């Protein structure tokens, strides 16, 4: 999944660099990538979502 995310990131940066008129598409891809990153981190830490320290 991390590979997929970096493909999205690379594509987004390429669009902003070479196809600036595709701003809306690029921003949507950026949002998808951010959500995917949050989802993957949450998946990895779902057994203890908050920092694992004394509360």
């Amino acid at each position, binding site marked *: *999944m*991390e*590979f*997929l*995310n*970096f*493909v999205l*990131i*690379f594509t*987004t*940066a*390429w669009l*902003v*660099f070479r196809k*600036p*008129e595709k*701003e809306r598409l*690029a*921003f949507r891809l*950026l*949002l998808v*990538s*951010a959500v995917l*990153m*949050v989802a*993957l*981190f949450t*998946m*990895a*830490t*779902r*057994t*203890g*979502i*908050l*920092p*694992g*320290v*004394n*509360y």
Partner: protein
Amino acid sequence: MKRNAVFTLLALAVLVLSIVPVGTAVFLLGFVYGDSPCVMCWEQRTGMVLVALTGLFILRYGPKPKYIGLSVLLGAWGLFMGLRHTGMHAARDVGQGFSLEILGAHTYTWALFIYWVCVATMGLLLMMVTHEDVPAEPRRLGLVDRLAFGVFLLVAAGNMVQAFASTGPPPYMGQSDPVRFSFLPKNWVWSLEEWTPSAISLRGRWAIEKPRVTGLPADPAAGPLANLTALPVRDQRPLGLELRGTVTDLAYEAATNRFLVTTQSGVYITDGSLGRIVRSTVVDPGYSIDLGPFAGAAFLERKYVMAVGENKSFVILHENDKANADKNYRFFLDSYDKFDELTRSRLGTVRARMMYTMSAAFDPASNSIVTVTVPNAKVKRLVISRFDRRDLTLSEEFMPSIAPESGLKLAGDKRSLDEYYVTGAAIVDGRLYALSAAYSTVLVIDLATHRVVSAWAIAGLDRPVGLAVKGGDFYIAGESGTLSVAARPDAASEAAGSAGSDAVTKPAAGKPAAAKNPVRTGARTSPGGRR
């Protein structure tokens, strides 16, 4: 000119973020040294790349609110990720961490710092931005801007390569314990371990329920130790003391013939009959170390008493008839002129770390304080912790086993001493008497051999929370305010033992019959035992 400087600074910030943490991680640490990020490191790295990507959006389209907002969100999430990851290892011993160490700090710690720098940088740049910086059309990119884009694309491509080798194509994803990076496909390990269903929790292993004596099984016959001898309760009556709160523990000092009673925050010293309070106070549990409700009470050396909270925080008080009431306002909620607060701190444990305690006892022979754990849903262990009185630091911890010569047997292969829920403790002559509210059982633990040398059942107790030994009797305080008294069968053998005898315990006249599991003196060094 000034406006271009803002974008140049932003381009430089994107370059620094792309090269220093992310580029170094993938090209140097990854491709050269074979470092492979764990799943959390991957997302922290991805977050940094996304912050840099948002910077590229601003370079191209100007500082539109949605880009600024997203960059702040990404920075905030990155700080959380850094804290979450660092928190896993932050409390370990010095030098212990996970994976690579850079300049004395492990990589996840650096992530926390880098996100902090990102957020601070965003704030600085925002202070320099005006509405004039938002162009109607996409900006034409200057040399530094193009360099930022080029480097970013190179770093993103490098991460694509490393991510494919280390984590694989979807649905494979990062691993908690990754394999060293390699360009050779035969060394690639792709995993679906993170997709395995597991319970979702906010605090994870730190979500430990508070201890309580209600709802515990009281029948000794259902306990983990089979065929225990029952000690009859000789006397049971209400504890007729005016207390602020309910009783939480009980202790006895033979030298002064006084009892110590604690409530949630109250400390009461009574006469030898438990009929009259001779000195008391209520400790202010707030505005400093969280003491938690008191669960253990102990007389220390003369005129010093200790109250231990269920969270193993504690306060030591010094009896003082001339205590300065004005000075003590900050420490107490009541009776400011009876005690001085000597110290308030925490007892740190290792084996018992994830468990609460409901008992404390003082051993004058070893000048130590002893606590006993109560099991919880996640950790079920009977752990006895001993702390040196001089520095109040952990001296030893052990999980007692059954002394073979005791004659005690578990009621089944799956039964364990860990099932006991010790709520009261007292020490006499090197023996720890641990009263379990679960199964109403008193365990006698030899502190030298770490063995359970005897055990008795005391039926008829009502939610026992405190145990004191006065002469040949157990004094047991219940949460409901009852006081139960039962004879201590091994009291007679102490006298015999002190006379050099190794005879089996015999009941004293008028006392209950001897236990089926009599204690023999001289049994402390016997091998074996079973938990």
